């Protein structure tokens, strides 16, 4: 019974993670490739699905805690799944934000910053994928590596925003594009933060170590 429920929970979490990754990928693709269909797909179809999964996972976690009073590793796993679930749902929200901005700036060109936006997006996406893999496969070293990569995305975001500000000063008529791009880059940076959180959750789940907020202590 417990095993059945745990398997079900893992399956749901994997589905959610895959879907959220997909959403992020699609909104970036839609942004760079000017594909309106997939952007609408993200906003109108994927987002409600993620919300449904989020509720489902939360319910299952509550049931497992209520019915089996898990302890030790199992307790940490369930608690961290609850947190990862929350983080993934937030990633989904950011993907929707990106998609919405992408729809708004669809008619405009921004070839001059495409590369750096793509770079930021890719490293955020990589972090997300790696953090989820670290969580699922309980890979400590990968999780630690993800945590360290957070600063890289921060750096990229700063670089982007600096570039956007420069361009706005020179081409005030394009400010709407850069305002949206700023929003997108901020979202990507938030995704990277959430990926870092997931990696931290993975570490706590595996070893019971809290390394959040720069602290490193055992529970």
């Amino acid at each position, binding site marked *: *019974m*417990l095993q059945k429920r745990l398997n079900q929970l893992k399956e749901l979490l994997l589905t959610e993670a895959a879907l959220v990754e997909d959403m992020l990928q699609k909104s970036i693709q839609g942004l760079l490739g000017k594909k309106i269909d997939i952007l609408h797909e993200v906003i109108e179809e994927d987002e409600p699905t993620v919300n449904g999964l989020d509720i489902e996972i939360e*319910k299952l976690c509550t*049931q497992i805690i*209520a*019915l*089996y009073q898990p302890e030790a590793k199992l307790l940490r796993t369930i608690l961290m799944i609850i947190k990862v679930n929350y983080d993934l749902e937030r990633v989904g929200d950011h993907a929707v934000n990106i998609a919405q901005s992408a729809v708004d700036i669809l008619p405009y060109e921004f070839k001059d910053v495409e590369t750096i936006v793509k770079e930021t997006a890719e490293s955020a996406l990589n972090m997300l994928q790696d953090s989820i893999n670290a969580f699922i496969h309980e890979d400590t070293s990968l999780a630690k590596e993800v945590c360290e990569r957070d600063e890289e995305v921060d750096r990229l975001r700063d670089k982007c925003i600096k570039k956007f500000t420069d361009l706005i000063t020179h081409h005030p008529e394009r400010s709407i594009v850069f305002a949206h791009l700023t929003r997108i880059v901020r979202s990507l940076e938030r995704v990277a933060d959430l990926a870092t959180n997931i990696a931290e959750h993975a570490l706590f789940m595996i070893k019971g170590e809290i390394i959040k907020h720069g602290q490193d202590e055992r529970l």
Partner: protein
Amino acid sequence: MEDKILITEKLYAYYGEHCVLKDVNLEIPKFKITAIMGPSGCGKTTLLRCFNRLHELSPGGRIEGQIWLGKTNLLSLNPIMVRRKIGMVFQRPNPFPTMSIYDNVIAGYKLNGIKIKREEADQIVETSLKKAALWNEVKDFLHRKGTFLSGGQQQRLCIARALAMHPEALLLDEPTSALDPKSTAHIEELIIELKDSVTIVIVTHNIGQAGRVADYTAFLYLGELVEFGPTERLFTAPKDKRTEEYLSGKFG
């Protein structure tokens, strides 16, 4: 709608003048595990004993209301026939001390004087012990006394003894309260495996046990059925305040 196997209607149970169950209306679904929980003295064991009419044997024990076994009125049947259709396992393992493991399993036939062929008896013993997950442990000394087994094994022997009669329902009265955690886990696994072939009603004062094994849970308090529903629902969002308080350890 699932099939119901045991249904009580306006069931009242008494010990002499003392009323132990008040207006219990409960429908126990077929091939599911239903847990009856509640604080000590809430009448959960009495309710269980009403189902196989063992309650009538206690001094001053009597019931009012209706109990249905499927479509038949359980109270109109001969209690002896009821007990052959509904098996029971008790708090303390109680194999017959004078009988071997083999004889314990077919005790329901032997004691009732039901004649069965030797091969048939062998078959019943083997399948029942296999169902009770005891066969591998005892197959080499079936003719030793049942009381040589450990507590957990004895309890599984008692389950096998009840299963040998091919009951429609199996009543378990706190079957693990006298056992260590490991045997308890073993019995719980067994109970879950059994539900495909027999309806199980288990009385427990261990909330965790109800959570782990039961599909449905009934909460009894002071002889009243406070709440009945799917275990997940009852455990995560009880409708009645008393259930909530019991689950959070306020009483019991």
